[in-house]
């Protein structure tokens, strides 16, 4: 098992590896392009948005699509298209924040627990089990209630709840890798624990972590949308796709079409993260014997 895994590890990446992979896997290519476009939109929203996302125009509420307002206006007369573009910033900021916290907290803990073993591992294992039992949004709601309502507090809480997932994966991989011959060899040559952890364990443990990170990005996005929908995430008048859906919910009987664009934006982005994760999993899978 371990033997096969090591011999099949992807070789040091040449720059062309990415292009090769994307050419082979259309789903991965489409997802990646979509996410890059989204990132570009998020970065350039102030310049490309046709209107201000927060300017109200109470004379023009709940309008359908027009040349001036491509996706119409919401119940306060704000341009939905512009809000959608600005919402991409919130979506990306929130996902990266939560998952970044999960990486920083989870990966080192998982690797150390797996490498050190013994009572440290047992203790960390129990803590991981504990945090995995908390439904993510529920704990995030509790933490925002305590720390104060706001997007950043909510996403910190989501990151804390996600951390054990990454810790568990990093730990499992570390348990496998630390038995490997080359780690023994490194130890025989007098390598320090720090050297072994950084140079041998971490690079190997990161592979399955990267796959999970991609999938967690989607989960974080959905958590942000949920929190903002409940009024516990982003605060008005700032737009997030979740809070746009909360506005659309208010006028659901008058203008049901208000809910389509933000919902589709969340769906497409989560789908892109998940597809990329699945494609990465397939690509990095050592039993994937493609030539």
């Amino acid at each position, binding site marked *: 098992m371990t033997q096969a895994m090591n011999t099949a590890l992807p070789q040091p990446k040449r720059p062309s590896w990415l292009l090769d992979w994307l050419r082979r896997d259309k789903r991965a290519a489409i997802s990646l392009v979509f996410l890059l476009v989204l990132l570009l939109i998020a970065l350039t929203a102030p310049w490309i948005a046709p209107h201000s996302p927060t300017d109200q125009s109470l004379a023009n509420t709940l309008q359908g699509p027009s040349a001036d307002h491509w996706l119409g206006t919401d119940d306060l007369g704000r341009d939905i298209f512009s809000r959608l573009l600005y919402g991409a910033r919130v979506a990306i900021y929130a996902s990266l924040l939560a998952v970044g916290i999960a990486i920083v907290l989870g990966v080192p803990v998982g690797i150390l627990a797996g490498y050190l073993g013994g009572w440290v591992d047992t203790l960390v294992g*129990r*803590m991981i089990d504990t945090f995995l039992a908390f439904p993510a949004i529920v704990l995030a709601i*509790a933490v925002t209630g305590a720390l104060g309502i706001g997007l950043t507090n909510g996403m910190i809480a989501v990151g804390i709840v996600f951390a054990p997932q990454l810790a568990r994966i990093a730990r499992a991989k570390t348990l496998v890798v630390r038995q490997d011959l080359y780690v023994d060899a490194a130890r025989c040559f007098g390598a320090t624990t720090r050297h072994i952890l950084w140079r041998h364990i971490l690079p190997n443990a990161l592979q399955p972590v990267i796959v999970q990170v991609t999938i967690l990005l989607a989960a974080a996005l959905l958590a942000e949308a949920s929190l903002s929908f*409940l009024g516990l995430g982003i605060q008005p008048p700032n737009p997030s796709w979740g809070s746009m859906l909360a506005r659309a919910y208010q006028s*659901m009987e008058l203008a049901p079409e208000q809910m389509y664009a933000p919902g589709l934006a969340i769906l497409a982005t989560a789908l892109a993260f998940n597809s990329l994760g699945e494609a990465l999993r397939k690509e990095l899978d050592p039993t994937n014997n493609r030539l």
Partner: protein
Amino acid sequence: MLSKLTDNIAALTQGRGGLVWRRLAQVLPVLVFATFVAFALLKLIPGDIALTLAGDNASEARIAEVRRIYGLDQSFISQYLSWFWNALHGDLSRSLLSGEAVATSIARCLPNTVLIVVLAMLISFAIGAPLGVWAASRQGRFIDSVVMTIASIGVAVPNFWLAMLLISFLALQFGWFPVTGAVALSKDPMAALHHAVLPALALAAGGIAEISRQLRAALIELLSSQQVRTLHAKGLSPTVILWKHGMKNVGVNLLTVLSLLANRMLAATVVIEAVFAIPGMGGLIVSAALQRDFPVVQGVVLVMVVIVLGINLLADLLYGVIDPRVE
């Protein structure tokens, strides 16, 4: 078959090394630690907790009273221990706003949440399992890719958006279902189910996706195994192979999904309940968090974690029943 199962169940509890006892010994520290986390949430509040708990413009006397009621004048550990001790006896303190016992509020809200979660689980299995089997039996063909696409969308779709779409079409346009609200199962079972169908459907999207994926993967792995090849060679029909030999492997997979879904659905129900204005656990914790009613927040978090851990334990034990080799 049945006698074998009862044998397995009996074996689970036998001796000090019985699976039940070992699992309980593993779950208990996790449970205690979870209660500690739920309690420690209160410590996240910046500044003097008594001031926050007493609310705005509280008098000195009120603040002192709050300090005494919540034991804030004692050390953190003794606060935790008395909270834990009370929680063990079903006393989860009182709401700061309504003064109602938190346990009473939870007892009132929990059935509404449990109803839609259980219904969503049933829907997930009823739709997800056949889809998974169907996809596995047509692996690599058109149906397979259709099912897998549906599953990808089911995982990625925001539940509350799906809920809004369901309301918009099935409730508002066609009028087949009530738009919002809930009816207690004990009062009027039919009306309760009628109210619960749309929330459960919205909740089930992820469940259907997860179950069909897991089942498909498990079946495909099984069908390509040496064991199945041998059974084929013996002349057994694919149906017999699937039902007699497949269910053991697949059952374990479905149990894993069950405990995963319990956690996810309890989380998702928070938002779903907001959309459907269902007075459940979600509504309870959201309004409590918005109004900083911490005893209620703690109580709901605690009860949800206990439910998730309980289902995990149940799933673990059922592993042992299905497959006694499980460590």
